[in-house]
């Protein structure tokens, strides 16, 4: 069992409240997944800048002096904003790959949670309430976001085993369920050049979508392929820089409820996750159909 929440805003006036709305939604799903929690939030894509979100088990040591050392390595002014165990590094987009390489040289213990123009990922073990509090998620603004509360089944309770998983620029995936062909698929994806950080089944699903989109598919098309290529139980909610998608396997035993108004599209593992949203009483509320791709784009 796990809990998923997602919110894709149509009404720009709600953007300053995205973090607050997502935090409330996430905490309602605590009893579906008290092991760990995570959130991916999309926002603040600005001009020629890109962002890398990193995590460190020893943030005091790793983040100290990081900005100066990265600036020296890149010959370029950048910013590093530390938030508890995570830090968001903002740098020119054309320095993104160089920055990632410099990071792994300078701080080999640092893990990259996400990189891209708009995405930031924060995830840790612990209760969802504590996780959103330590990162100040309620104060974040954005266009869309996805959250996950985890009750681990397929791999250990660790920061890296928490969701969301990001395997490509501005991409993320959260998963409720368990995949049965992930080992084989991971092997095939490794042959295609994908890299994996964990033994987690959900990371394989994320990498599968990344690999398919790298072949030129859009998110919706990549999700269509997942219906045939992924074996097991899943409800996925996925994000891209401008898109938001939902897919359930053909058996559809993992719960899902969606709501749509003129202001937003929202996803919850249960209706409880949606009750705090504005205008929910008048929203169109429905259960997504099995093996059917749902996909919205800004």
């Amino acid at each position: 069992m796990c809990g998923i929440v997602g919110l894709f805003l149509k009404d720009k006036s709600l953007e300053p409240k995205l973090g607050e709305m997502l935090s409330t939604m996430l905490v309602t799903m605590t009893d579906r997944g008290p092991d760990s929690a995570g959130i991916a939030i999309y926002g603040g894509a600005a001009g020629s800048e890109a962002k890398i979100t990193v995590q460190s088990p020893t943030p005091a040591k790793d983040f100290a002096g990081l900005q100066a050392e990265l600036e020296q390595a890149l010959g370029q002014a950048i910013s590093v904003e530390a938030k508890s165990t995570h830090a968001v590094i903002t740098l020119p987009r054309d320095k993104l790959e160089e920055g990632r390489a410099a990071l792994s040289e300078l701080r080999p213990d640092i893990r990259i949670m996400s990189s891209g123009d708009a995405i930031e990922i924060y995830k840790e073990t612990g209760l969802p309430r504590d996780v959103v509090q330590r990162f100040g998620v309620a104060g974040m603004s954005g266009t869309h976001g996805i959250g996950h509360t985890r009750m681990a089944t397929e791999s250990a309770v660790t920061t890296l085993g928490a969701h969301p998983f990001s395997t490509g620029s501005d991409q993320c995936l959260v998963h409720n369920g368990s995949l049965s062909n992930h080992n084989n698929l991971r092997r095939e994806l490794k042959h295609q050049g994908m890299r994996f950080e964990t033994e987690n089944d959900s990371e394989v699903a994320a990498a599968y979508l990344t690999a398919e989109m790298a072949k030129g598919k859009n998110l919706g098309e990549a999700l269509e392929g997942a219906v045939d290529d992924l074996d097991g139980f899943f409800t996925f909610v996925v994000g891209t820089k401008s898109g938001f998608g939902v897919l359930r396997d053909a058996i559809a035993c993992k719960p899902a409820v969606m709501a749509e108004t003129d202001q937003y599209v929202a996803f919850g593992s249960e209706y409880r996750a949606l009750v705090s949203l504005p205008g929910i009483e008048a929203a169109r509320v429905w259960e997504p159909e099995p093996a059917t791709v749902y996909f919205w784009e800004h």
Partner: protein
Amino acid sequence: MPTFDLAITPLRDLNQALHDVAPGSNDLHFEVINPRGSHAVACGVSAPVAIDVQGNVGYYCGGMNEDATITIHGSAGPGVGENMMSGTIVVKGDASQYAGATACGGMLVIEGNASSRCGISMKGVDIVVRGSIGHMSAFMAQAGNLVVLGDAGDALGDSLYEAKIFVRGSVKSLGADCIPKAMKPKHLERLARLLEKAGITDVKPEEFKRYGSARKLYTFHVDNADAY
């Protein structure tokens, strides 16, 4: 009429009050407001009370119900009326997966659509769905009646035993050992009774098709009796 506001009252207080209704009590009408998707609302009631739930509920609303009449003025999450024994549950909106699972008696009416596995392993309940039902409905259904005014999804009635299924719309596919069967006068009478009991007056029994077990699976062959 006692009213429980679940925005301020713990769910346990509501369920305890419902379990404490003494025989001969005159206070037999309860109202529940602000359920906000709560689980296990009005579970395990065993008294002839009427309960109006104003809003959407989560998992297992009215589970194990005996004698109570529960009306959900909203939609229900997974497992509404699971293992109900008697009484009536009416869902004014939609119901999520496995509505009426394993239920032994009484009537479950869903005025909207029901999701997958509606009536899975039902054991005597009557389920009437005004809308459509999802895949794998009435899987291993043993007894009772499933009446669907709309359409049925894939694998309807897979591994069915003695339950009877009536569908007015289309059936996407039939499950293993489930076959269309002739609608005889006694079935039309049965269906008319069920529709009347569910308060449905705008459709006729003749508009439905009947489905049931072909009784060809290995469980039906006496040669396999000592396999268990």
